[in-house]
């Protein structure tokens, strides 16, 4: 009896705007795993995770989600997704509480009211990201790092079994990074799975058991995460230096 695999992508090819972005990519994530997707800018990390959560169609290959072919999969509330975003919002104001509560909607049938259990999940998610005291504030009044935490709380409010995050640490202050590491640690300890795209791991490094390194739309390596650089002044700060693909962004591998 093998472990349930959360995502099982075999020989996946994805084309966007007439261009092949992913080429023959195979990645399997088992239940309870904590996996980082690493790689230079433009290497296909975002495309890969969007494909895993069913947002990109496959031109070739097979994807199974919770051991079910993606076309037949219906239990989407088991997944939480935090897209690569700079900020929350839109034209109309919304409070932190409203945005986080919207992460519950996928779990609710149309005529069911927002119950005590729903509110408890929202409160818990807010607590986990350290924003309980801002629940009534407009999201636009928060800092970039706090807004990122709101987006993570929105995903956590749905009580997902697997959380997929696209660069949740990019441009986020050290405080928010620590809070995020704490929240993901809780989820992982409770048996949840985490797939996370990152440029630099920072305080998350100690949680990661496996790293998939992408390069030019292919999997370059898949295995234990790169070891921390002993010469670095930050003991748990991990940098990626894939050789086939020189850094294309000024932030790649650099401290901010």
């Amino acid at each position, binding site marked *: 009896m093998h472990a349930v695999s959360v995502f099982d992508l075999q020989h996946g090819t994805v084309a966007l705007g007439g261009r092949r972005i992913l080429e023959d990519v195979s990645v399997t994530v088992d239940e309870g795993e904590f996996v980082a997707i690493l790689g230079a800018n433009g290497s296909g990390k975002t495309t890969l995770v969007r494909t895993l959560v069913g947002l990109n169609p496959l031109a070739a290959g097979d994807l199974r989600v919770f051991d079910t072919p993606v076309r037949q999969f219906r239990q989407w509330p088991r997944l939480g*997704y935090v897209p690569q975003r700079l900020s929350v919002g*839109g034209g109309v104001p919304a409070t932190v509480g409203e945005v986080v509560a919207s992460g519950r909607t*996928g779990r609710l049938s*149309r005529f069911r009211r927002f119950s005590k259990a729903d509110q408890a999940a929202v409160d818990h998610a807010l607590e986990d990201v350290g924003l309980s005291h801002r629940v009534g504030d*407009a999201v636009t009044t928060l800092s970039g790092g706090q807004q990122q935490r709101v987006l993570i709380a929105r995903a956590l409010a749905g009580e997902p079994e697997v959380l997929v995050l696209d660069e949740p640490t990019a441009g986020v202050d050290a405080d928010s990074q620590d809070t995020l590491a704490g929240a993901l640690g809780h989820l992982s300890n409770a048996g949840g799975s985490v797939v996370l795209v990152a440029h630099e791991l920072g305080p998350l490094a100690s949680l990661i058991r496996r790293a998939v390194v992408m390069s030019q739309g292919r999997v370059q390596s898949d295995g234990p995460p790169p070891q921390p650089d002993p010469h670095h002044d930050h003991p748990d700060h991990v940098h990626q230096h894939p050789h086939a693909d020189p850094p294309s962004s000024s932030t790649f591998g650099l401290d901010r």
Partner: protein
Amino acid sequence: MTILAFDFMRRGLIAAFVVGLAAPSIGTFLVQRRLSLTGDGIGHVAFTGVGLGVLLRTSPVLTAVVVSVVGAVVIEIVRERAAASGDVALALLFYGGLAGGSILIKLAGGTSSALGGYLFGSLSSVSDGDLAVIVTLSAVVLLTMALFLRELFAVCQDEDVARVSGMPVRFLNLLVAVGAAVTVTVAMRTVGLLLVSALMVVPVATVQLVARSFKGTLYGACLLGSVMSVGGLVVSYYADVPPGGSIVMLSLAAFLVAAVSRKWVRA
């Protein structure tokens, strides 16, 4: 109140009230997604529907509903595809709508004064039959928005996240598009096709200056919209100006007051 002595004014005031309530409920979702001009686009398309109704000698409201729903669905499909030329495609649709309407009305032997009633609203044009249609359709729009509020909020916060959590995103987007089309036609008699979008957008823009929450903005905008709509109609009666003009001017004045007083408070 002498104003209530006239049947047409009583009908007009009821129509203005329900339209003022319904228009911002759709407008909130359009503003949230930065699609404020969608209502204008649908208004242009609906004009062809009016022309068709006049030509076929059936109810222009009915043909306008059909044509603008079709137009709104086309607009939504173009938006979803988000093609590079989407912007131009929409512009072409708008011009076609206005041009088609003007030709059809002329062919039907219509006058330009009848035309003005559709474009800027008219006080005397709401018949008993019209009123029944206006109230029914406004109620349908409001009930639908209330029923799907939670999902619509989630979708307009982030379509991708909503899709991943299993929501029927395309259906919900079409719901807003069709709701906008119905609202445009329902408001056509009161504010007119060229100004209907203002009643969807301006109350939302005003309330969001002072609100912190989405629900506060939504409910506040519906309240403000109905007050402005009824107030504007009363002004239209006494000042003898097209109701669309007075309703929108009143709304813009409220926006100005909110913007200035907010500056004051913050300073």
